[in-house]
């Protein structure tokens, strides 16, 4: 990951959530990472169990790079049972439902169990895939589920937010997931629903369940809990963030 600034900044404090976690069906081995300009990094687990890498670059700099390499072993063939945090039943900043989403849930519910469709989350994923279009540039990182739904267009973050909102509204505990997929490019976002004592991954952007090609970086109530980079610095500069992901099978 590369952060660049159009003017030098100083006293830059950051918290990155970009290291693969070990949880559920995923184990991370031999992770090596470092930043440039060089500095001390600390690793902390946040309130959701996400791996967080924090530190600071106090001297003036116009770019900050973090490079992480390692091996992640993924096997999601067996559900890993764990205790539910009731928090994931309640709406959050990005996932508060409006009347339009409530109405949409009622529509989707009519299809539950029909045409060989399984339980509600599957049905919601189907409907959302049909009724929402993947169009980059229509939404940004501040767009809530209700706002994205109003425009019927957005990116993976919006799919995940709307899906999570609908699930919670229907009484299914759901959480937002940030992660990566096999291949090269940027990061991806999907959702998990708590079913029969275990978290199950749904990727509404691709209308499929997650498999072993998905690597989790973090989960939380919504995007706000999973921001890859949170930081603040002193300096009159705007920041650009570039994330480059390469996952080999």
């Amino acid at each position, binding site marked *: 990951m590369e952060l660049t600034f159009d003017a030098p900044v100083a006293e830059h404090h950051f*918290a990155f959530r970009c290291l693969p976690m070990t949880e559920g069906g995923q184990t991370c081995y031999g992770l090596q990472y470092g930043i440039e300009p060089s500095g001390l990094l600390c690793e902390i687990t946040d*309130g959701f169990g996400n791996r967080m890498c924090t530190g600071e670059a106090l001297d003036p700099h116009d770019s900050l790079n973090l490079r992480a390499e390692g091996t992640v072993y993924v096997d999601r063939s067996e559900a890993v049972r764990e205790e539910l945090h*009731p928090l994931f039943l309640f709406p959050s900043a990005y996932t508060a439902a409006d009347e339009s989403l409530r109405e949409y849930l009622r529509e989707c519910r009519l299809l539950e169990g029909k045409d060989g469709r399984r339980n509600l989350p599957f049905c919601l994923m189907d409907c959302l895939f049909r009724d929402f279009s993947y169009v980059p540039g229509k939404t940004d990182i501040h767009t809530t589920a209700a706002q994205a739904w109003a425009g019927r267009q957005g990116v993976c973050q919006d799919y995940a937010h709307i899906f999570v909102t609908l699930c919670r509204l229907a009484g299914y505990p759901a959480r937002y997931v940030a992660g990566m997929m096999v291949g090269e490019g940027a990061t991806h976002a999907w959702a998990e629903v708590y079913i029969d004592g275990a978290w199950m991954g749904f990727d509404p952007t691709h209308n499929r369940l997650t498999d072993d090609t998905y690597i989790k970086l973090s989960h939380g109530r919504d995007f706000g809990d999973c921001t890859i980079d949170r930081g603040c610095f002193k300096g009159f500069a705007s920041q650009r963030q570039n994330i480059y992901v390469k996952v080999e099978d």
Partner: protein
Amino acid sequence: MFELVDHTENINRLLARYGVKFGIYKNHEFHEQLFPFDPLPRVISAEEFDFLNRGLSQRVNALNLFLADVYSEKKIIKDGVIPADFVYSSKGYLPQCEKIVPPGKIYSHISGIDLVQGKDKNWYILEDNLRIPSGASYPMIARELTRRAAPATFSRTRIADNRNYAVMLKETLDYVNTGGINVVLTPGRYNAAFFEHSYLAERSGAVLAMPQDLLVENNKLYYRQYGGRNLQVGAVYRRLSDEYLDPLCFLPESLIGVPGIMNVYRSGNVAIVNAPGNGVADDKGIYYFVPHMIKYYLGEEAILKNAPTYLAFYEKDREFILEHLERLVVKDVSEAGGYGVIFGRDLTKEKLRELAEVIKAEPRRFIAQEVIDFIDLGIVEGDHEVPRKADLRAFVLAGKDTRVWPSGLTRFSRNPNSFVVNSSQGGGFKDTWVLSR
């Protein structure tokens, strides 16, 4: 104590000069107003204080156990004593604080518990303030000034010295300090309680720090000294609210926070006093459950009573509230500082109907309480002594043990018809004397 009356004007003038003021924001403008001091103290006997001490310590111990539970195992929710709704949809619950074990396992180090004494002589708890309760400095400095004005009063009457608050505060901070200095973190000069921040720092020997004086480096917190070495900080008595505390963790737009402080805290490298996330326990909705908590965690009956409270969330209570709206006081659980408090008896029929609709639409938002007819205390107005409603904010400090400060802030309403005593609503204050045996 009546000889103090002659000194009223003098003392108020001195208080103003020391900066004992209250700042309030109204319509987005900052106004500073004096916090009028009334010379007649509230007097509490040694036996009565002993009783209050037991009741308040019990309450704060239970609240601390509740906070530890909510941010770790959540047994009280699993056991069905408190509905999950009241915890997770409370604005005060911060998932960012999950699984943090604060130094000494203490969450509420300094609790401000508001109580009133009914005409039946019973004390009732009105609310718990577990975030950053302010007000201890006012009776402290008032005592200082009255002692100077009328020293004989204090040698004749055996009154517990309340100036020990500074020592109690220091002991509390030292107990949780993880290595380093103690600081009082103030958002700055334009905060409502800036006088208190500077006074408490000075008295307790802590360093008064503005946010820009603190710096996180290598997962430790430092105080920047001018032109010198940075000093490590072991305990922060912070006087800014959770959401502004750390832009990396809470509101990203906060300019008055210390970036990274939450990670230092999570790693156990600094104590934050009071702990972030305490808002979940002093929510007006959770208040209803405090007697249940005392029973659940301590296996004891609550020594001090809550005011009789009904929770609109429960259907049975809601029906009762709607039936008796005109005699109850309704409180919006998300508001503080005397805002969002509605007395049914002050409303017209039409307004009562409107209120009933709002309660039906959003039951989780409201509690209703019986209006407690609490005792009047005499205050000096001109040449007369007149009765006014007054409450008591008791300060409970939790460290090695839990103790109540033998004094407290007695606030009164200057309006003869009002029961609302909050300083943000224009009330005044009195010293609180606890007699020693």
